């Protein structure tokens, strides 16, 4: 059985470029600070969080009913509703709609769901040109990479990288790094694609059961332009995106961008309820493992996620390891609790890619207990026998020692003595001791506390 690289192994690659790591960390910390300013300036923010959490808990507890209500309302609005059990079904449905429309050119606005389903390769393999219209998404599409963040998909790239990419693919001048000129080049390039597209695919930030409408939030207006121009709109949504009523929506639009970027609201918050005259609107509702997660009591709250990315921006591990180190569509702390649901073995290292500092839980606008779930996944993975043998057996041994005071005392004496006697080069050999790659071991004292204490008591007893 081949083992996929662990998060630590992938991180080590990212860490090799220390300057880029610093830049990545500082850039995302800047976003976290913007989030803080917006949150501090909203006195009722903690109440909003609680309200959002309660609405999501309630919706998930009656998800089937709300999905049916949504479908009925959407159908009544003239929207065609499709159900996909998994990624393959989703891709087949989308391709079917594109083909039925006789189309070969598609523009897509940002959607983590279509990334999750690997829609682009499927469409391309079937002769459909698909262009990502979000600027960050387009950059990484040209580079053949996956997004490294849910809100800032190209945050791992510097403007020099973008200049290089545009020079290679869009014919801009070599060495161009001016953001305004690069953006203008992308604008001109994308405009042609917008005008030529016959089908527009969008993600869905929120779907409202009461009205049967979907809500798409973008800062670039790319979804609106694409949907406005194309004859067919396909909105792809995970089945957890539902909210019961239109009046619930305001709670989430207030939380989403404050948490994501520190903005009070996205530049465009667009509601799509029915197709324009002569046009088609489709909604594809995707399960792809979500009902399985819903059935795991310890992890169901992860489905409350609204994909703001706040947990990534605050995570000290994510900031220094980059999104690609997670090797999953949704990276960072939330990705680390969603991914084992899909494949425990492949993603076994992700719940361990955390210090459990809890900052992710404290920034989460819908109060997902992220770090508690990370801790719980570790136990599930341990119970499933998926931990490396070295860890499994060392922990069993440690348990025996720590449950027996005599053994613990003797072990401590031996460890301290060993550390004093063994040459530094050996006790700190990086090949054997990962602690010592960057750190000195504690200097071993002659006496443990318990030895000191026993001596004190015997002296005072005399």
């Amino acid at each position: 059985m081949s083992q996929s690289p662990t998060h630590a192994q992938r991180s080590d690659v990212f860490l090799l470029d220390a300057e880029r790591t610093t830049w990545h960390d500082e850039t995302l910390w800047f976003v976290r600070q913007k989030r803080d300013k917006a949150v501090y300036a909203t006195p009722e923010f903690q109440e909003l969080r609680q309200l959002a959490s309660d609405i999501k808990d309630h919706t998930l507890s009656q998800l089937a009913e709300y999905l049916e209500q949504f479908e009925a309302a959407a159908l009544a609005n003239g929207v065609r509703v499709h159900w996909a059990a998994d990624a393959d079904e989703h891709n087949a449905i989308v391709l079917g709609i594109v083909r039925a429309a006789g189309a070969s050119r598609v523009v897509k606005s940002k959607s983590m769901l279509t990334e999750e389903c690997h829609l682009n390769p499927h469409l391309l393999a079937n002769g459909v040109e698909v262009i990502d219209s979000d600027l960050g998404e387009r950059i990484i599409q040209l580079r053949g990479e996956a997004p490294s963040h849910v809100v800032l998909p190209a945050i791992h790239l510097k403007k020099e990288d973008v200049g290089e990419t545009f020079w290679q693919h869009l014919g801009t001048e070599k060495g161009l790094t001016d953001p305004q000129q690069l953006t203008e080049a992308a604008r001109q390039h994308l405009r042609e694609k917008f005008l030529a597209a016959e089908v527009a695919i969008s993600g869905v930030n929120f779907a409202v059961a009461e009205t049967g409408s979907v809500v798409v939030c973008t800062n670039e207006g790319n979804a609106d332009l694409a949907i406005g121009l194309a004859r067919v709109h396909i909105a792809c949504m995970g089945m957890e995106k539902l909210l019961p009523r239109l009046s619930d929506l305001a709670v989430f639009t207030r939380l989403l961008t404050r948490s994501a970027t520190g903005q009070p609201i996205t530049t465009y918050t667009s509601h799509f309820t029915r197709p324009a005259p002569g046009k088609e609107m489709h909604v594809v509702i995707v399960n792809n493992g979500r009902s399985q997660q819903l059935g795991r009591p310890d992890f169901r709250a992860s489905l409350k996620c609204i994909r703001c990315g706040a947990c990534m921006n605050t995570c000290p591990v994510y900031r220094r390891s980059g999104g690609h180190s997670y090797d999953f569509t949704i990276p960072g702390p939330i990705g680390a609790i969603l991914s084992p649901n899909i494949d425990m073995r492949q993603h076994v290292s992700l719940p361990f890619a955390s210090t459990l500092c809890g900052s992710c839980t404290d920034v989460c606008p819908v109060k997902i207990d992220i770090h508690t779930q990370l801790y719980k996944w570790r136990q599930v993975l341990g119970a499933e026998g998926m931990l490396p043998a070295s860890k499994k057996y060392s922990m069993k041994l440690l348990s025996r020692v720590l449950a027996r005071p005599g053994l613990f005392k003797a072990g401590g004496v031996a460890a301290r003595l060993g550390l004093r006697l063994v040459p530094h080069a050996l006790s700190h050999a990086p090949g054997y001791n990962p602690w010592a790659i960057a750190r000195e071991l504690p200097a071993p004292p002659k006496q443990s506390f318990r030895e000191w204490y026993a001596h004190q008591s015997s002296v005072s007893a005399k």
Partner: protein
Amino acid sequence: MKVALFVPCYVDQFYPQVAIASLQLLEKLGVRAVFPAQQTCCGQPMANSGCEQDAKPVYHHFVETFQDYDYVVGPAGSCVYHVRKHFDIIDQTPAVQHVRTATVELFDFITSILGVTELPGRFPHQVGLHLSCHGQRGLHQANESEMTPVRDGQLRRLLAGLEGLTLTELDRNDECCGFGGTFCVSEAGISARMGQDRVADHLRHGTQVLTGGDMSCLMHLEGLVRRRQLPLQVRHAAEIFNQAFA
């Protein structure tokens, strides 16, 4: 009031001076704490590694050791948090429930239980406080920057009360140092990088003595400081107060 001193396994073996300082500090405050010699560890290393089942015998041993005390006081927020939060997987007998609520972090005990809000003494140095995540976000001993810009907390207030002491203002008040238990070994690269960044924040703002309420974070940071021979002393807050409170 029967008080037991809970000395985390690695403190017992590698930082006895922290346990001695805790004991002496409590004595100066009129609390005579005893050290039950059969104690070992809270079981966190196994549990954080995904081997909670292996930790159960250690949990039971912990409860047996400490069940007869009114308070179990430890100079380590992380271990205390573990007892309070994660001993939920064993049978919740009255003894288990008692030990979970009676186990208290040293400075929580001093401020919340003893009601001491100021400690006497002089410590004329610039001190940088490392807020440990489990004490701060787990035990709520300080404000979280995720919630409020107000920088306050038990330890910060106590330190600020010492004569001659200047507190360092950091760029990142409460970012994790990267220790994280077995994380420091299984993700050694990221762990080291996080710690180096924390230390750099302190050095940049003039910290001479780096302190905190949790020796595990400090052990990691001290290891990084000594490797690079940086001009920084690392000491547990109990040591500072015990020295200042002459």
